[in-house]
């Protein structure tokens, strides 16, 4: 890839600088401004006082005249927001670990044990990836109710893996494929069990894959909405997305300042996590498409 970049740079002299400004930098700049503007606007709004928020004549709307933390204060101390944040963390972490656990074994079985029918199971798991939550939430709501899980975070911890496992398994299969068979054969001859091989040889070599799958699974569970909206009804068990939309928007008067603060605080954890693992995230996203 580095080589490709050098080659590309090598051919750049064929294009004049003014031309590059018009064909590359200008459109790219417009893309960046449009893609980032909602975040900028979200941040600005959340730090504005109410007076400033609705008065575009005296204050420049794109800047802060009197930054305030009142919106955040209201969010954190007068609503259930901290509770929702905590619920989302707990649910996402549990669902991610449950999915990773199940996916590691499934991927190893399909990719390395190659039992009869392994190929078909692999295809079936890929197909499961294509079943969207929008067509499952009604029957799942019925099941969740019958199982007595309604209005509990366990309803989400147990259903999120159906979204995460297909993806994680598919991704880990790709990683396991790249580990040489010889390592496993050596261990088998030395008498190691499959479980020991998986734990002591395969997993340490697949750590980048585990991180990629984990990060992606965590953001997917953090962003999930329709199940959380359907299976949870009391405010204390809601997730950030659902709580912000349903509880902060009651009544006719919208408190835009605290709404924006809620959206900002709810977005930050995934954005920060993402910024630390950009390469892992991108490789998992593109990997799932390319494999």
């Amino acid at each position: 890839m580095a080589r490709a970049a050098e080659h590309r740079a090598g051919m750049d002299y064929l294009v004049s600088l003014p031309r590059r400004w018009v064909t590359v930098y200008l459109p790219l700049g417009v893309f960046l401004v449009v893609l980032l503007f909602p975040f900028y606007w979200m941040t600005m709004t959340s730090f504005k006082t109410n007076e400033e928020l609705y008065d575009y004549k005296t204050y420049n709307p794109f800047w802060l005249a009197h930054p305030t933390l009142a919106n955040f204060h209201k969010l954190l101390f007068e609503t259930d927001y901290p509770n929702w944040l905590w619920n989302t963390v707990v649910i996402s972490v549990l669902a991610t670990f449950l999915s990773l656990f199940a996916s590691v074994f499934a991927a190893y079985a399909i990719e390395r044990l190659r039992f009869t029918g392994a190929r078909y199971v692999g295809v079936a798991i890929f197909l499961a990836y294509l079943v969207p939550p929008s067509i499952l939430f009604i029957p799942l709501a019925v099941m969740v109710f019958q199982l007595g899980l309604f209005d509990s975070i366990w309803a989400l911890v147990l259903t999120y893996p159906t979204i995460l496992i297909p993806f994680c398994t598919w991704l880990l299969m790709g990683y396991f494929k790249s580990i040489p068979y010889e390592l496993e054969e050596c261990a088998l001859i030395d008498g190691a069990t499959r479980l020991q091989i998986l734990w002591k040889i395969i997993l340490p070599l697949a750590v980048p894959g585990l991180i990629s799958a984990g990060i992606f699974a965590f953001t997917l569970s953090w962003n999930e909405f329709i199940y959380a909206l359907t299976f949870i009804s009391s405010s204390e068990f809601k997730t950030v997305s659902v709580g912000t939309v349903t509880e902060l928007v009651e009544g006719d008067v919208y408190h835009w300042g605290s709404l924006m603060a809620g959206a900002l605080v709810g977005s930050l954890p995934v954005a920060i996590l993402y910024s630390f693992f950009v390469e892992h995230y991108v490789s998992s996203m593109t990997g799932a498409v390319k494999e």
Partner: protein
Amino acid sequence: MVAESGNLEIAAGASQGWLARAMHGREVLGWLFLLPAAALLLVFLTYPLGLGIWLAMTDATLGESGHFIGLGNYLSLSRDDVFWLSVFNTALYTGVASVIKFALGLWLALLLNEHIPFKSIVRAVVLLPFIVPTVLSAIAFWWIYDSQFSIISWLLVRLGLIHQYIDFLGDPNNARASVIAANIWRGVPFVAITLLAGLQTIAPSLYEAATLDGASSWQCFRHVTLPLLTPIIAVVMTFSVLFTFTDFQLIYTLTRGGPINATHLMATLSFQRAITGGHLGEGAAIAVAMIPFLLAAILFSYFGLQRRAWQHGGKD
């Protein structure tokens, strides 16, 4: 480390009978390893899929299990104007958003593939709209689309382009355009970054050869880039279409299907009928009506994948 534990294991294996041998065999162990994933997927994915198809043929409501009524729900839906409006909206939303997402996504991917300063930071930043929870970014759009305090209207008025504020979410057609724009905003990064990964696998020597043969940059794109990118485009667009078609979050946050059902998608209508209205059977029928389209998308993806193996020489 491996050798130590190995010796212990051989001793154990010899003393135990069929159970130990089975634990070493691929067949039994394979299915055993598959058990956690299979159990979760069968119970919470396959079974509800079947249950949904069954529910769609009953008159179940919230709290009552209902009776079998055959195709009754589908018959009543076929006479339901709101249902057909939601089908039309879904088709329009998916069609327009997917085409624009593809065009802009490909353009952005080509731009990011250029030699630009701060390349990795720019690439990381571009993906942000896709990372952040859709519902939360939709709230930001809600404020941007506000009828009284929209920053877009304010800016356009200031620039003298319009004279009164745009009613983004109050007018049916404006509302459709607004939700489609928000969906495009969120989807373009996904298309761009995945296509960029595809672009980076294309050998630069191909471009050098084409340039030496006198190909223009358009010809390079048309006859080198596009053919080699086609398989990835097929897969990316399948996912993009699938996610757009079954979208729920954006509409629920921005309009809840309004004004006058103008932005109701099949997913939001099924939520409204089943959960808000309590008619589980009818809601399930609307959800099941999305399945034929889903199958079409899966087949499309399947053939897209097939073509890829063939194009790379089909070595394995």
